């Protein structure tokens, strides 16, 4: 097998896929990042295309989780009837590329590519998602915050394949929102993103999960603010509790899309607005 310098494998079952995994293998799920990285060049190396594996294509409800298979596309998320805490993910799905990309791109691929501007990580962080990774000998779950390590870097070892994203179910009333800022409508890479999932119990915030994307190498949860918001009444304004210092840990960069100062200050404004919108959802 090692003698094949250029090869392509598209198995129809997970076991075959897992057996094929070696450090040189490039996994293809969707292809919306794979192909653009290879404009005008040849497809070198070993490619494992996991798009024909039926069990990876499903969104399944289990007792504890919603399980999103590794080749579930953004369009699959949009079309599936899901609880309200998925609203942010659905909004993110609608803002990815155009419909073509939504039909082809996968959520799992988006996190494995681990771009700082990727749309899925901030949302999955607010869902406290676990990444299910499998090898031929084991399956384990890694929290999303431990999974992505840096700019285009994950903790995935070459013997493992991401097989699903597990979203823990929430029992309380929830609302979720997502705000993407870009320099044009459609087909746009984020300048900054904010994602929220807020649970209400007896008229008070039981848990607030807030994250910001594209303002640091890895999307970040805003934990101080989350704690401060806990217990806030649904009757009161929440956005007033947002402080500039809440974003102290962000480290945005200057690039062609925006400069760092703007990114950080825009993120603060977006955070306030998104929190406000999330609260409004409880009244609609």
């Amino acid at each position: 097998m090692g003698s094949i310098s250029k090869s392509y494998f598209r198995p129809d079952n997970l076991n075959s896929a897992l057996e094929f995994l070696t450090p040189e293998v490039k996994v293809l799920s969707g292809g919306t990042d794979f192909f653009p990285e290879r404009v005008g060049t040849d497809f070198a190396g070993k490619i494992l295309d996991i798009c024909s594996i039926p069990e990876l294509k499903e969104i399944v409800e289990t007792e504890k989780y919603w399980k999103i298979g590794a080749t579930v596309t953004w369009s699959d998320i949009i079309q599936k009837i899901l609880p309200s805490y998925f609203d942010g993910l659905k909004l993110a799905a609608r803002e990815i590329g155009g419909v073509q990309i939504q039909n082809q791109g996968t959520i799992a691929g988006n996190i494995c590519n681990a771009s700082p501007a990727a749309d899925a990580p901030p949302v999955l962080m607010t869902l406290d998602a676990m990444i299910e990774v499998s090898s031929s000998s084991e399956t384990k779950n890694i929290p999303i915050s431990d999974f992505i390590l840096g700019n285009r870097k994950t903790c995935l070892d070459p013997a493992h394949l991401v097989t699903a994203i597990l979203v823990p179910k929430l029992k309380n009333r929830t609302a979720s929102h997502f705000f993407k800022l870009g320099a044009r409508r459609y087909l746009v890479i984020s300048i900054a993103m904010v994602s929220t999932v807020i649970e209400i119990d007896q008229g008070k915030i039981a848990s607030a999960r807030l994250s910001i994307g594209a303002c640091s190498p890895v999307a970040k949860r805003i934990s101080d603010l989350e704690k401060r918001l806990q217990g806030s009444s649904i009757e009161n304004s929440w956005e007033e509790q947002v402080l500039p210092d809440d974003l102290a840990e962000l480290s945005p960069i200057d690039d062609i899309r925006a400069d760092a100062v703007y990114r950080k200050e825009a993120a603060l404004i977006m955070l306030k607005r998104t929190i406000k919108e999330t609260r409004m959802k409880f009244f609609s």
Partner: protein
Amino acid sequence: MTETHIQKISTEVTINFTLNGTRSQYRGSPFKRLSAVIRDDFRLTGLKIGCDAGDCGACTILLDGKQICSCLTSISSADGKTITTVEGLRLEQTTRKLQQSFAKHGAAQCGICMPGFLIAGASVLKKHEKPTKQQILDELGGVLCRCGAYQKIIEAILDANNPSLETKEPEIGKAVGFRYPKTDGMTKLTGEEKFGADSIPADALWLRIIRSPHDSAHFELGDFGPFLKKYPGIQKIMTAADMPFNRFGVYPHIKDQPVMAENFVQFKGEAIAALIGEKETLLQVPLEDFPVSFQVNVPVLGIEAAKSETATVLHRDHADNVLARGKVHKKNIEKGFQESAFICEEFFQTGFVEHSYIEPEAGWAKIVGERIEIMVSTQTPVMDKMELAGVLLCDSEKIRVIPTACGGGFGGKLDMSVQPFIARAAQLTGRAVALVYDRPESLASSTKRHASKIWAKFGCDHNGKLKASQLFAEFDTGAYASWGPTVADRVPVHASGPYYVPHVKNDSVAYYTNRHPAGAFRGFGVPQSTIAHESLMDWLAEKAGLDRLEIRYINALREGDATATGQVLENSAGLPQCLDALRPRWKEFLDEVVCFNRVNTQIKRGAGIGCMWYGVGNTSMSNPSTIRIGISEAGTITLYNGAVDIGQGSNTVLTQIAADALGIAVSQIHLVMGDTDLTADAGKTSASRQTFISGKACELAGKSLREKLFAALGLSVTDAGNPLHRIERENNLIGVRCNNRFYGLDTSVLEPDSNGDVLIGEGYFDPPTSPLNSEGQGNPYAAYGFAAQIAMVEVDMELACVKVLKIAAAHDAGKAINPMLVEGQIMGGISQGLGLALMEEYVSGQTENLHNYLIPTIGDVPEIECMIIESASPLGPSGAKGVGEPGLIPTAAAILGAINHAAGIRLKQVPVLPHRLYHELRKKKGGS
């Protein structure tokens, strides 16, 4: 698992699928882009390759009913599935009607994006029988149209259920002024149209260009031996040494650009060598293995660097790095400012802008006997022919250029790109040779709109009447001349705006730098200077206490006024009429802004206005067109049209003009476009000149042929002047119906020419201009287009995001030969003007793809209301002038004015990216 499950990419597999209703089988590598398989293996070239990265949507197909980018999936994913490409849309009634609706509404301009939009349109109609506008936007958001035909596309989809989509023919003699669907429209909607990359023979050799990764460097080519041994598929490596004369350039006296660099490179993306071989083999060659070593130099980047006394000199004969200067000085500028009650002055800055036609440069060449034939996407076949003769050191008659359909040009396909490579490679190998740029290559190597630094100062009296205008524009023209001198000439002529100004001092300089050459781009520098003069007009209005539309109205150039170059406009100066037409809408916009802003704080609205004028055709230079129309032995009427239709619609417009000049139905005219062997020189498709100049030549050709036909029939030439006598066909004879009697032409007694025509009418028109004197005074153009646009925007005062809500545009077209196509040009220009204002900036090394270089999508371009003013030019055909560039020129200015109205920020730099506006808002807040 055994090894047999795994396929080597080099091995063959069998994949079965249904392609446009037909069961199909593919045998070949298991891992190839689906787009490439459909185009190369199944020879269905309807889907287009615009980027290979999912950024443009031109390759969109339906896979099991879902729209996908076929460039982002491998052939293996089609196994057992159903594929619909644009060629398959004729199979269903709904999609056939969609195509008809696109044709009827003029949705196709160049047509390169049409396969993508039709598939996305089919997808929205599958989901919703009667889709809303928002549903259409969401479903079509993944396809880019650089011609900016979005509004027509939306209208076409909304109207796709209309039972009567057929278009009536206009009455004979009434083709001019008729909203005739494009004569070549349907082929652009069925996938049949052949663009630069669509008719390459399967056995052609291909080229791949090795390009410089450095802005400025000396280089040495290494030993090719080991490289060729490692990659035996490379048949030949072509370098500068292989070019008979390794220089080209659009000006006869400035041939400063090498086809391939010799020893040193002047910009990132410059060609240094070309590999010739089989397509698939070449793709496998890692270009970084090419034997070359660079010694990097400190590059000259930006205007200030070029001006520096210690700057490296790019071209020995331009020691100050100045390529060209231009000037227009009228009367006494000091006196003008002394007479001014109000004076404003400001610095402005604009970046490089990329044409981003969705069709990258493409073409192929073959040897036919002793001649070379070039099939290429171009705006200028005759100039290509002359340029190639220069590079190949051969007689230009040894070269035939046959333009393919052009998938967008906007000025970017006025310079040679693939032409010298394919021509020389065909000569060296004796084979057909093709070259198709990939998107990063197209972006890195093609010309750009000039980056500029502009200082302007305007003065007016107490009543707002302009007294003086001064403007100094510096342009970054990049490493080679291209159209830099044209920009330097054109800007001073136009830089006082479409206004009467008694005292003028306009100057320009174009500097060489180590950037991609800056060249022609819709407006030749005038959009940049328009931002400056329109911003100052707004400011003067504020100082003089005048409405922004009214200050323009009182200063508008009128018939009888002298321009900045001292040219007295005898006629066809329609800016006052444009402003009259816009005034009611302007008041509505202003009222709406007041109402909205009263109750909103986070979001503010604003209205802005921009005016422009634009000289049609070359500046003070002869630029004639010759058009011929023939009647063949079989009685067929053929329009031999050397003017290339790059999407703007000259094929249709010229046919309409010819039909009326001849007195025949439009559908009776066959068209030959651009083939340099069959058509006469109708000049470049640039400078908004084809309707005006080639249109006039066409009108004259039609009249001439009509007279010849009458004479051949023994009828009086005076009768030819009577439009009631129509040219018709009866019993297979072409002839004239005169006083209820049909006079048929017996073609058998006439001698056919080499094209088989027995009668030929020829028309020639060269618009009368005069050279500018040393002060820039003279008559540089024979006609000017005028326009005014108003924009309404929304500014998010916290996030500093701008959304354009509405634009109304009034354009003096002289006469709209085809109002639908005029609207297309206006809307398209506005789309690009919006990009210039809000998002487009080419940054070498950072924006070499269409997700970092942003152009407006269907969601960015607002509703546009077009008002066509017809202030006829006595020179143009039926009074028509050019409208190609004017659509773009005032848009950015109107948007900037609207942002200022909303946010109180006078912006001096475009594009107004959110962070740039944010910092301005912050400064203002801090200062107040």
